[in-house]
């Protein structure tokens, strides 16, 4: 029986589709040159349009939140940029722990939305961190990563299980900016680390180490998904002892031979 909720969702989808079509038209009007710059110039207005179309239903038309979604006023550019650039937002239904998926918007649009939402706050909230991998220390990054991140995200940034059906995600697809944003913002159930807890230099180092973990040094051969003793044990039995069993089966006789 279609209730008011399903009707509203259909209406939202219609509006969303319409807004997406409209919203997508904007950047192409900017012509050549840096689309992001040109877009940012008209950002508050085009960002506002996208926001009203795609986000307002849950977050409120003034981003002050509804019972479907939290307030975004004052969360800061880093928060919004993180959720949009990792595709966690927008979602078409309420979900406790939004997962990474292909972003719904391109870089220019994200910049516009971020600019708009940021303008709704009182200038509080975390700005988008400027990550400089060049000055970062891989060794410091490794130590800081082990101390602050590995317990949830694993030694090799593969992610991990938490309670309440939640997961610390894999960091394999993360960009340095996203890594820094997540550290500063603490999305979802992740704790956050402000500049007094981890300096910008330390965050740069962690980002550099995570980028390294995306292609770790596997001098020993096949990485076997870097899960650890579990896969090693399985391979020992299936491949190692399996091969040995085939060999002794070949060497020896069977009953009835």
């Amino acid at each position, binding site marked *: 029986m279609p209730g008011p909720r399903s009707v509203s969702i259909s209406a939202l989808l219609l509006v969303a589709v319409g807004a997406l079509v409209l919203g997508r038209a904007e950047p192409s009007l900017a012509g050549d040159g840096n689309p992001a710059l040109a877009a940012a110039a008209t950002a508050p207005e085009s960002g506002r349009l996208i926001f009203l179309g795609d986000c307002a239903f849950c977050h409120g038309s003034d981003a002050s939140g509804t019972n479907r979604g939290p307030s975004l006023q004052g969360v800061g550019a880093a928060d919004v940029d993180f959720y949009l650039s990792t595709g966690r937002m927008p979602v078409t239904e309420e979900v406790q722990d939004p997962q990474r998926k292909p972003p719904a918007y391109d870089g220019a649009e994200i910049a516009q939305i971020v600019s708009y939402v940021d303008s709704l706050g009182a200038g509080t909230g975390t700005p988008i961190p400027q990550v400089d991998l060049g000055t970062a220390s891989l060794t410091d990054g490794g130590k800081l990563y082990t101390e602050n991140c590995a317990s949830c995200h694993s030694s090799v940034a593969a992610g*991990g299980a938490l309670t309440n059906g939640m997961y610390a995600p894999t960091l394999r697809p993360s960009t340095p900016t996203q890594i820094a944003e997540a550290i500063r913002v603490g999305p979802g159930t992740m704790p956050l680390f402000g500049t007094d807890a981890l300096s910008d230099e330390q965050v740069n180092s962690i980002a550099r180490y995570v980028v390294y973990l995306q292609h770790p040094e596997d*001098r020993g051969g*096949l990485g076997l998904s870097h899960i650890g003793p579990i896969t090693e044990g399985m391979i020992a039995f299936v491949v190692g002892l399996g091969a040995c069993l085939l060999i002794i089966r070949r060497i020896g006789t069977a009953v009835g031979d």
Partner: protein
Amino acid sequence: MARWTDDRLGSSAFAEEALNKVFPDHWSFMLGEISLYCFVILILTGTFLTFFFDASSREIVYRGSYAPLNGATVSEAYASVVRISFDVRAGLVMRQIHHWAALLFIGAIVLHLCRIFFTGAFRRPRELNWIIGVTLLILAIFNGFTGYSLPDDLLSGTGLRIAYSIALSVPLIGTWVAFLIFGGEFPAQQIISRLFVIHIMLIPALIIALLGAHLAILWRQKHTQFPEAGRTESNVVGSKLWPTYAAKSVGLFCAIFAVLGALGGLAQINPIWLYGPFDPAYVASPSQPDWFLGWVDGALRLFPAWEFRTGSFMIPNPFFPGVLLPGITFGLLYLWPFLEARLTHDYGPHELLDRPTDRPVRSAIGAGVLTFYIVLLFSASNDVIARMFQVPVLAMTVAFRIALFVIPLLVAYVVYRWFKAVKVAGAEGVMEVSLAQVLHPVAGEK
């Protein structure tokens, strides 16, 4: 050559007897040899590693070719293993062959133990060799644990902390046991060097001595064999030691070495440079021990939050899965030949083996118990399974608790019915009975 030796030792008669000695050829009789040859390879590769490993917890600054650790403060033990892996020529392949060989060594012992169990080879007069064998299994597990704890990395150090807590949990003497083994409160500085002595000297010496006895007893008692044409309780049928059995055996050694060489060079194992050095205040998830201790870790995860208090004394939770369970496990293993003799009222000697289907009860018990430990082993990976299949981790714990009792009973029942049907029908093998025969066993022609 033979003359030279005979002039000094009078060895000709023994040599001839040895060369002519007959060994049965069944493939399952070579499982013990797999573990023996893995042990030889462990000693060869291990000796190489001892020349480069530094068993010291002293902190130094790592300077080597692995860039992400350059300038990091680590223990000398850890630094030496990173150096073996990156800066010692052939170091990494030796290290990896060594670790893969350890996993296969214990696995082959378990397979060999299963073969002995399911064919009844532990019966008189071989109870002594069974006892020696179970002891070898315990020693192998301990050596595996001490071995992978030597690099002092984050993963194995976590395991040492758990071992310390298990020692602490022993009633009355636990704190003393833990403090004496480790040298003080965790993490004492002495543990790595102590583990080194245990790992390269004490336990290998015991293993070599017991292996020697194990093989000498086998030599003296002669190998068992399956009841086939021409085989009786008073003969041995097979190949002679020289040249055939020796050639096959040396060939097997080379084959195992080849398998381990392939694994050691192509499949990365224990990449401690990715785990980082041990620090008692930090841990990474997931954290598992090597497979041969997975059953204990699984038990620690599954055992409910029960602790016992009497007055001002307590028996902490880890005691039950960490001390009691292994104690009962190996206690029952040791006692089994005597238990079975008593239960079957069969105290006589046996030189002929049972086909597993000849003994449905024993096989069912063995299969059920083996399944129990396999479920425990898989339970240690509950968090990895949860992450991989996006299932809540605590739900996995509950599922494994249920599985721990249901699946072994199910397996035991199925094995019992199946083997009973095979036995009753006089069938040649387990695949030679139909489902109908399993459900309603009918005596067949022999």
